[in-house]
């Protein structure tokens, strides 16, 4: 399983999908987030593997 964290919540996704797949699976906009896999920034095409710890970081701020 791949553990994905986003805004304090945890999700479990199947390995083998790309970072972009994970972003879309969570209903997020790929332009508005970045993906850290095991603490390292990866581009959207990175394939997530079993045991990976993934954090999706929202990049949009405003007020």
């Amino acid at each position, binding site marked *: 399983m791949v553990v994905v964290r986003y805004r304090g919540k945890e999700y479990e996704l199947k390995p083998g999908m790309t970072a972009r797949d994970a972003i879309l699976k969570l209903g997020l906009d790929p332009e508005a987030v970045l993906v850290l896999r095991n603490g390292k*920034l990866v581009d959207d095409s990175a394939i997530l593997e079993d045991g990976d710890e993934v954090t999706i970081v929202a990049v*949009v*701020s405003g*007020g």
Partner: protein
Amino acid sequence: MGNSRMKCRKCGRPAAINMRRHKLALCDECYPAWFRGQVERTIRQFGMLAPDDRVLVAVSGGKDSLSVWDVLLRLGYHAEALYIDLGIPDGGYSTESKVRALRFAEARGAVCHVVSVRDRYGLSVPELAMRRGRGHKVCSLCGLVKRHIMNGFAWEGGFSVLVTGHNLDDEAAVLMQNTLTWQPGYLARQSPVLPADSEGLARKVKPLCLMYEREVAAYALVCGIDYIQDECPHAVGARTLFYKEILNQLEQRSPGAKAYFFTQFLRAKQSGAIRFVEGEEVALHACERCGQPTTAPGLCAFCRLWQSDTQGDEG
């Protein structure tokens, strides 16, 4: 590690970021230098900074302001920072953001000045908003407070230029809002450089104005800049976020759309293709209380805010 399909254009290592608008993928080692080069180019393009400038960076503890400060320090500018403690208690927001700004400064041996709104004026920004009965307009009030303090600090401290961390998404969102509501005054003034065209006004520049918000966040993450990732609790539902969402939908369909929207606007203004008819020149007066320039005689909008017996309308 290493199972990225996309490779760095410069060295062939796995890519850390793919920037579709540039058709450019870079790894975490090549990206920071590229980013700094882009910012340096923007600074040159708009004549933002001179090597001997005394620079004040307005920092919030967020990714944009800490990243621009990082870049300026690495480029060799004499850059001090100002953190304004707004006193936002929700989830320790102000405390957390201040800690990050001060830690950043300490790690680099840089100077970060702190001004607490409550210590200096007696109320935090949320308390002031409550007192003024403008709880629903905290963001505009907060903006007014920050602009006043930043300008005054830069001017009184003898800084030659004030740097803010506005990125291209910020600028494009403001441009979209002002275009959809046809605000010629705001459109005329929107610029990467705001000159100090009156006594008491600091020169303001935005070195990140051509960088996407996503690119700035990537820079902060790759460089290990510890920034506050939580959104300001008062920004939830802010109109800027709505415009950014729409712009990102455009970007998703057409990479480069956000940059095109903003840069073509600047180009059209510069070339004279879009002209804003100048109204009568507005005379600026010194505020009776603080001395900062204001359009109306008497007190400036900021000082009116702190009067207990009048409406704190902006002007």
